């Protein structure tokens, strides 16, 4: 099921009938979805539904076993690794745990992509680093090593590093995981501000429903056997009860939650109910 498909001309990134499995465990089965240009798209889904896999497929870190992954108008599934590096120059990725190089200081981590790919002088690079750090609300952290940073600071430094090369597309993996409510709101505000000021396409994978529903322009919801996509307000009023349950704040009792979880169990993994009460 593909509710509210995005027209080809509006999509910056598109997945077309993508199949992906880890060993014998299928993760994505014929998934098609699109991410509109300049918008914040949020990918939602249960654990193991393949949300992070989608980000890795877009970044070319994983190869789709079938189907196409279009970044811009280019199908990246058939590209060689050396060609993928050209595509990645237009992408930025904020990893769930930062993925900062732990042998380099914060300044060196942020300067790294510019040192590798630009001819800017040391002073110019330093100025750009400070500009980006300021944009994510950090100052005087140049000489700190990644191990000396708090969880929220790691996320912000990782976000700043992902922005260093002014990417056209920013991939964000679980930006709110492991953060306290205040840091969550801060990161949420940062992502929205960056999107509004720099106008880049953002694809965010998250479990955090309230934040993602506030910030999303477009939602891709991975449900067992189907993908539902559209604007948050429409999806919230969806006729599909599974979509509504996923997107609405939970005020259910434990017994009700227990009953609902059956709806989200993947078809083939669903326990067979035997006869009798």
């Amino acid at each position, binding site marked *: 099921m593909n509710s509210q498909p995005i027209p080809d001309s509006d999509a910056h990134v598109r997945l077309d009938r993508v199949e992906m499995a880890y060993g014998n465990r299928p993760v994505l089965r014929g998934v098609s979805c699109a991410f509109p240009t300049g918008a914040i798209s949020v990918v939602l889904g249960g654990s193991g539904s393949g949300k992070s896999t989608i980000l890795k497929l877009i970044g070319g870190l994983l190869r789709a076993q079938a189907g196409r992954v279009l970044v811009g108008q280019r199908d990246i599934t058939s590209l060689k690794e050396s060609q993928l*590096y050209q595509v990645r120059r237009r*992408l930025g990725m904020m*990893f769930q745990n930062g*993925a900062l*190089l732990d042998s380099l200081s914060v300044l060196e981590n942020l300067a*790294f992509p510019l040192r590798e*790919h630009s001819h800017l002088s040391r002073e110019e690079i330093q100025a750009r680093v400070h500009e980006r750090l300021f944009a994510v609300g950090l100052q005087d952290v140049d000489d700190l090593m990644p191990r000396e940073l708090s969880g929220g600071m790691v996320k912000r430094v990782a976000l700043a*590093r992902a922005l260093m090369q002014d990417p056209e597309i920013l991939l964000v993996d679980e930006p709110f995981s492991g953060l306290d409510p205040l840091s969550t709101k801060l990161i949420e505000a940062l992502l929205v501000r960056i999107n509004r000021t720099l106008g880049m396409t953002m694809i965010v994978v998250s479990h955090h429903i309230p934040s993602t529903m506030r910030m999303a322009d477009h939602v891709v919801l991975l449900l067992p056997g189907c993908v539902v996509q559209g604007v948050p307000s429409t999806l919230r009023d969806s006729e599909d009860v599974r979509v509504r349950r996923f997107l609405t704040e939970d005020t259910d009792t434990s017994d009700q939650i227990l009953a609902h979880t059956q709806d989200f169990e993947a078809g083939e993994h669903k326990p067979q109910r035997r006869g009798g009460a």
Partner: protein
Amino acid sequence: MARLIRRLGRRVGRMVEELGRLAEFTGHIVTVTMRPPLRIREFVDEVFKTGVLSILIIGISGMAVGMVLGLQGYTTLVRFGAENSLGAVVGLSLIREMGPVLTALLTTGRAGSAITAEIGAMKATEQLDGLRMMAVDPVDYVIRPKAWAMVVSMPLLSALFIVTGIAGGYVVGVDLMGIDSGTFLSSLENAVDFRDDVAGSIIKSVIFGTLVGLISTYRGYTAAPTSAGVSAATTSTVVIGSVSVLIFDYFITALWGV
């Protein structure tokens, strides 16, 4: 019986597949080596970690092995009245065999395992994927400096092992057992041929350095991204690295007489 053959076949198949991947990995390192930038800073950092930080263990081990060789050599040679040849025995044993081999084994345990663990941990914490997403090839930035540092450090460490070993043999032979200093040194000088012994020893340790550098980086690069995966890869570096060094040592000696 059929099952045994099938199992053996599968295992051999996996081994050939693994060797193919290692060859591809080696080709990748060679390719990135020929491309700029040279990454001098990263290379020097790695030579420090692999080479300079191994100086103490190599120096102490070389001295201990040289002293044991001096003692064993003296007690054996004195039976035949040939104790004046102690310098030659100690020198040739260290230069031709013990220097390169023991240095390679010690370096595999000390630096090789550290390289595997570091690369494996970088993989487990997505740092290698982070590099890829910044359009930087991890084989270029992480693997290349480490592998080359091992190739360069190994002959230097081996030379250190040999020098401290000869010093250890000298102390035991001359100072403890009372052999004449001039006799010890002239026997050493007369026995050692630069082309056959010294150059051969250097070639041997360069080959061992290449072997250990490749195995340790490959194991880290292909480690499962979990703590158990990194631990297994580190163990495998020490085991496979050490066994390969010993096997290659036999073939180099047998084929080239080094």
